[in-house]
């Protein structure tokens, strides 16, 4: 055991103190509440991108769908603040990674799994998370972070369930993350 995990890229700066980053993230959330009147979000934009892509392939089926259809009632589902927020998240992350020399192209994995296995688990996990985010009406950003700060009962239930699910499944995928 050797302390917090640091970037592996050659010449990369160390990550910032987690409490400093936490205050920065909390003030960003507060800014979102005050300026936008809504909190942070991430999964909503990915679902909207998926809906748009599916709409190109099968417009009638998507518009007839009970869940996705309403997103097309007033034009494109991409004309939504969550989509712009995620573009910002991508660019903000890129800027920060560039400044700290932490851009590192490759498959991040433990030392005992192949890149192919790691990608397979990333896809499996992504399928679950994409599905679960719609079911819970939000993800770690929109529910766990935003809803918890708003002291919402359902968001706290989601937060506890996320950690419970993670710790329950962790032993099964342990090999993926071993050094």
């Amino acid at each position, binding site marked *: 055991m050797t302390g917090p995990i640091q970037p592996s890229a050659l010449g990369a700066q160390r990550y910032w103190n987690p409490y400093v980053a936490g205050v920065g993230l909390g003030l960003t959330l507060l800014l979102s509440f005050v300026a936008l009147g809504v909190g942070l979000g991430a999964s909503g934009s990915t679902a909207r991108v998926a809906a748009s892509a599916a709409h190109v392939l099968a417009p009638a089926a998507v518009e007839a769908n009970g869940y996705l259809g309403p997103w097309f009632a007033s034009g494109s589902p991409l004309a939504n603040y969550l989509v712009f*927020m995620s573009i910002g998240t991508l660019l903000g992350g890129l800027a920060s990674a560039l400044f700290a020399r932490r851009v590192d192209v490759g498959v991040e994995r433990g030392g005992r799994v192949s890149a192919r296995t790691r990608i397979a688990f990333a896809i499996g996990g992504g399928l679950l998370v994409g599905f679960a985010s719609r079911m819970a009406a939000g993800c770690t950003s929109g529910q766990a972070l935003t809803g918890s700060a708003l002291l919402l009962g359902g*968001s706290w239930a989601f937060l506890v369930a996320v950690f419970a*699910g993670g710790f329950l*499944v962790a032993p099964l995928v342990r090999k993926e993350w071993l050094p």
Partner: protein
Amino acid sequence: MNLYDSGTLESPLGWTVALIVGLAFGFWLERAGFGSSRKLAGIFYLRDFAVVQVMFTAVATAALGLVALDVAGLFDASRVYRMETLLAPQIVGGLLFGAGFVAGGWCPGTALVGAASGKLDALAFLGATLIGSLVYAAAWPQLAPLQDIGACGVVTLPDLLHLSPGIVAALIVAVALVAFTAINRFAPRR
């Protein structure tokens, strides 16, 4: 008056502000080390505590800040959009989400930052979340009735505990400080 409250969230102004908020969001996630799936998954093996440290510091900061602004009369916290509690979907969804989080190594927001950092596993994860959300939509006719199980409108911890928002925010800070003290004592050092 915030943009949501004034009905102008979906406007060029709302989108511009959302983009700026997103820039700060991505910056802080990356600074925290959340552009790394190994670091994120590390919490589930008690190998790295940044997820808990960053998340609870952020929740405590925002919760306390919102109460403070409200008490000082600078911002009406009741005008912020609040999500309804859907107890069964949020608990079942949370369990599935947690399983996907540790297996995939990312959540949607951190995967955006991971992809920006060049992580190909983040790209694969993001692509799969698109499919996962479409699977949910495809199953909507069957799932819709289940979404209402445990639906109880907007429910807040202050309502449930019969305490003021300020006291609840202070309790969250207190619990976070106890957890941080324990982590600082027992977590592996550099």
